[in-house]
């Protein structure tokens, strides 16, 4: 019997709908404010609200779902009736979000994601459904049809016994939040908001404030900058603390489940064999503190924020503990750090050279008009360009020193890169490498070097992993490892 969503889904759907109108809404609200609540602006606001309410109402009214024995069936649409069939076996990730206000009702929002690259149709969202729905789907997925209506308990979402559990230590989480660079984008947002605020505050006030502070101008600007920086760091810290609050990774049979979040409890479950690759990341800062982050690349959008599609398996773990900690959860990860074959020392300068050439061309293109039109600022531009080039050279050195490849065994490969001051290591199984390319140039061939690039599915996209100026024999070895039957097919 197809079921309708609970009534509580309505406000959630409305919020989601209004989010897509956020930009327009913001514009109208600012306009309304500036025009001192003119009737036409209020009318526009009312129209947008009423329109989305109507849309959401219709969508809610026409939306039903059914947990059939083999598949989840979702029916929706007013004029175009749409029936989506999602076989349980094809579900890549099950993503559950429970905002704190849904907790008393025992409801949660469920995202079912498949590997279909057709983003919107590959996924289905069930708003504010009882916890038992996720438990049922999970049970179907693990080929153990649910026994009785026993799964109705609103508290026990995953009734099965966990085989293995790892909960993040508060100290580690604290370090993770402190070493995040997430405040940088936040800082941009704050400055942006300040710019907008600038438009809203009457000019007369501003003029008065600025004239009274004019003699303190530099101090005020520096102080304001510092203040914003501190606010951004603090906000980013709090955000990460609440986001990864009580982060827990559990393994039940073949399913890995991560649970986290204070205000919004987020639970993501993925079958172990659906993981395309594991990614171990360390920014320069965390490298210094010997901390690492472990992510899983999966063939669906497992993360809730659009900026990062990859499932976090371990927000922070002491680097030395990465492999021993992760190996029990994902048996195909090595139990100890793989011994990487680094870039030959006499080829590392290529990385520096390439970055200097690339950045040098761009900087020259910027400096020429500067010299022509504003020659009095040339010294400053040249100074900044010089610092930039030094940083580029250092980044090149960093990338060269961190790049490497290791063939772990006939099924597994480890590849490490160092871009944007972040060391990233991938461990991938042979069957998850979609394609592989070796390349070099006529000038590089006599030096016995080549570039290796791997393509791995990540979210709806392709994650290309490239290691440049690898020893050619090593590159060929990886290529032969990938296609052992055709070792004769070489350049």
């Amino acid at each position, binding site marked *: 019997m197809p079921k309708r969503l609970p009534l509580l889904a309505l406000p959630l759907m409305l919020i989601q709908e209004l989010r897509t109108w956020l930009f327009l809404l913001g514009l109208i609200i600012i306009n309304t404010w500036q025009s001192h609540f003119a009737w036409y602006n209020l009318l526009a606001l009312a129209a947008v609200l009423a329109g989305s309410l109507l849309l959401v109402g219709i969508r809610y009214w026409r939306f039903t779902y059914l947990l059939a024995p083999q598949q989840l069936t979702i029916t929706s649409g007013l004029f175009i009736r749409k029936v989506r069939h999602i076989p349980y076996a094809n579900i890549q990730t099950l993503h559950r979000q429970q905002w704190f206000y849904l907790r008393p009702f025992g409801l949660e929002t469920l995202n079912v994601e498949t590997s279909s690259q057709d983003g919107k149709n590959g996924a289905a969202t069930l708003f504010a459904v009882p916890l038992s729905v996720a438990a049922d789907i999970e049970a179907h997925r693990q080929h153990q049809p649910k026994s009785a209506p026993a799964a109705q308990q609103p508290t026990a979402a995953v009734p099965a016994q966990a085989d293995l559990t790892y909960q993040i230590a508060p100290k580690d989480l604290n370090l993770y939040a402190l070493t995040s660079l997430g405040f940088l984008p936040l800082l941009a947002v704050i400055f942006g908001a300040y710019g907008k605020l600038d438009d809203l505050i009457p000019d007369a006030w501003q003029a008065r404030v600025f004239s009274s502070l004019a003699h303190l101008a530099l101090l005020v600007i520096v102080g304001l900058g510092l203040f914003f920086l501190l606010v951004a760091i603090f906000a980013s810290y709090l955000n990460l603390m609440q986001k990864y609050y009580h982060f827990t990774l559990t393994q039940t049979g073949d399913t890995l489940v991560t649970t986290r979040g204070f205000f919004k409890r987020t639970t993501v479950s993925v079958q172990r064999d659906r993981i395309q690759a594991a990614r171990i990341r360390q920014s320069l800062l965390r490298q210094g503190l010997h901390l690492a982050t472990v992510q899983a690349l999966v063939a669906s959008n497992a993360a809730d924020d659009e900026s990062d599609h990859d499932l976090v398996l371990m927000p922070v773990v002491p680097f030395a503990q990465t492999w021993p900690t992760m190996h029990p959860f994902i048996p195909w990860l090595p139990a100890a750090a793989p011994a990487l074959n680094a870039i030959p020392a006499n080829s590392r300068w290529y990385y520096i050279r390439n970055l200097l050439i690339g950045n040098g061309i761009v900087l020259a293109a910027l400096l020429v008009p500067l010299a022509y039109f504003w020659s009095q600022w040339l010294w400053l531009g040249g100074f900044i360009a010089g610092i930039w080039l030094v940083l580029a050279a250092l980044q090149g050195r960093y990338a060269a020193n961190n790049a490497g490849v290791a063939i772990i065994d006939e099924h597994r490969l480890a590849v490490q890169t160092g871009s944007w001051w972040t060391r990233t290591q991938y461990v991938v199984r042979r069957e998850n490498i979609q394609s592989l390319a*070796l390349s070099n140039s006529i000038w590089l061939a006599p030096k016995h070097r080549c570039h290796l690039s791997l393509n791995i599915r990540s979210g709806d996209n392709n994650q290309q992993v490239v290691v440049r100026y690898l020893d050619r024999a090593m590159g060929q070895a990886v290529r032969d490892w990938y296609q052992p039957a055709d070792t004769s097919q070489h350049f």
Partner: protein
Amino acid sequence: MQAQLPHQIKTVWRARAAIDGIIWLAITAALLICHHLWQWPWWLAMIPLVAGILHVGSHLLLIPYRYRFWRYAITADAVYLRSGYLFRTEEAIPIARIQNVTLAAGPLLQWQSLQAVQVHTASTTHSIAGVTGAVADQLREQIMQLAKEARADA
């Protein structure tokens, strides 16, 4: 098996370059007319002309090079693509990773009775610029057959 693209592909590439050239010329002509009618600066028309000469010229010059060094091979396990001489790349796409194969032919390819082949994996797409109809069908059959066998094995 290691195959070169059919020689007709050179005719297709040349025709494509010619069409590009006509488009650039049309833009140039339009700007010249504007110059006559509304006294737009004449050098505005030179921009598409120079861009067109560079674009089409480099294309035409590169055709023999591209043709000479482009190779594909299909073995029991994988599709191999190889290109370039100054900068060379060899790609390996295991048959078992191939999700689907697309054959497509626009007017130019049809005129030369060729078909373009696209091989899709779960995250990448690889193209063979043009093959004769017979080879295309054989290729598709082979890839589908191998893909089926690879699935059955797994």
